[in-house]
């Protein structure tokens, strides 16, 4: 799972300080600010490493997140909508990222298009509460999942490149 590039990318994501979930009022706003700071930094890092691969935004309460992630395969860009809710027990438990349009296409998904993370992810997250945030979830959860599943789905002909999506 954690190849050298992933490990380097993760080590450059700022760690979060505030151990607070969506049920806490003011402290959650502080946690959200840190989440956004870390996400902005991670996206900036990705851009400068020429590996920009996702965008995320949330509702104003920061409880529901949605965005896009994409994967380049044979110079073609495959783009997907993603979404997730922040569980009431966050950050003790990581959110379950879903790519609804891939639901039913791969066994590496739970119902509703929730991606199935590796056995390594949960202990890793648990050991890093509250320092890991959504940027870490992207880097250690969704990123490696896309890297394994998307080429496989393309090879099996289960996803096609959409014409309107610009080539990279």
């Amino acid at each position, binding site marked *: 799972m954690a190849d050298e590039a992933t490990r380097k990318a993760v080590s450059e994501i700022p760690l979060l*300080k505030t151990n607070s979930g*969506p049920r806490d009022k003011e402290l959650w706003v502080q946690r959200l600010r840190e989440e*956004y700071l870390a996400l902005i930094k991670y996206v900036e890092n990705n851009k400068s490493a020429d590996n920009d691969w996702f965008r995320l935004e949330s509702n104003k309460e920061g409880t529901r997140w949605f965005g896009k992630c994409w994967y380049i395969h044979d110079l073609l860009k495959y783009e997907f909508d993603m979404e997730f809710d*922040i569980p*009431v027990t966050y950050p003790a438990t990581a959110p379950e990222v879903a790519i609804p349009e891939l639901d039913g296409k791969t066994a590496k998904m739970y119902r509703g298009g929730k991606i199935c993370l590796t*056995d*390594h992810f949960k202990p890793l997250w*648990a050991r890093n509460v509250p320092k890991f945030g959504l940027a870490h979830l992207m880097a250690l959860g969704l990123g490696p999942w896309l890297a394994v599943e998307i080429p496989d789905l393309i090879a099996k002909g289960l996803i096609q490149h959409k014409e309107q999506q610009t080539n990279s």
Partner: protein
Amino acid sequence: MSIRVENRVAMATVEELKLRVRELENELIKCKQKRCAEENAGGSQKHYRQRIEKMSAEVVDSNPYSRLMALKRMGIVEDYERIRTFSVAVVGVGGVGSVTAEMLTRCGIGKLILFDYDKVELANMNRLFFQPHQAGLSKVEAAEHTLRSINPDVSFETHNYNITTMENFSHFMDRISHGGLEEAKPVDLVLSCVDNFEARMAINTACNELGQIWMESGVSENAVSGHIQLIIPGETACFACAPPLVVAANIDEKTLKREGVCAASLPTTMGVVAGLLVQNVLKYLLGFGSVSHYLGYNAMQDFFPTMSMKANPQCDDHYCRKQQEEYKRKEAERPKQEVVEEEEVQVVHEDNEWGIELVSEVTEEELKAASGPKPDLPEGITVAYTIPEKEVNTPAEEMVEETEQSLEELMAQMKRM
């Protein structure tokens, strides 16, 4: 920019339409089911029995309770009728939860409150309870329909939502604390029959806050082990007191192929776990036999390890710590009595030489740094992972840098990227 906004508006409408289609589909399935039931019954209601006011021990072919009431005659259970006074919440109506609900319904439980956000799918048909013609219905709705026809004496309350989201969690807490047989009283027991960590933690959070006794159940993702656990907030270990306890399956990790699949499931293992769970529930509610604190099931070796674990004074859940203080206070006030020695497990701090694999490529030192103390557990039970002692400090340069920007500004900045 404007195109994206418009797109979102259009998406919301599509979502609404999808929801409406879903509702109409549910209606249609229900109509079909109703017609089917009527045809089967020859247009009459002869397959549905009338409600029974009082449980009778009379052995006649029309009495569904005679064999249960025999437990009383045989002296196993002192007062079986008390079952009708209890309200039980079942969270998760999948492979374990649906069978659990069916067993409790057949036993004549007073009230069942069912929570699940999922719908019945044909892919669920390797499990018990649900039937192919129910595909498409919400699990709670389909379950209520079947269970009510099995035993109309039970009252049902169903909630078709995800308990882990902000939208629903407070409602979930409210139903736990007010869902008793007499409204405004709490339920007697909460049963966790969910299949994921997030939902277990949400139930744990709610029960710690409310001081609600609950039982946890689980089947491993490889389908060959499972467990049940009784959690009395403040007294026995809560779900956050230690990393998840799992039954060692004695399968060589190297031979376990995980490529290409998330989880396996067997109706047998789920049926066994549901049986163990409801047995513990009956013993707890009706006061017979000994109630297990933790009971594991290893299907590969047919081994059933048991143990008991005290709440952890350093638990991350502060309501758990609060409940522990409350429990200590009550214990101190209680008149002294003979204590039966029971093997208790506590987290011990020792060198961790067994270490579990964290990330395939890490070095020995990193692995050691990432592992923590392992509780001294009985044979056959282990923890899913360990957590190292809390680090003293993380270098400031690795933490997020404070800025003057407000949350709104940061959200806008992220949107512009």
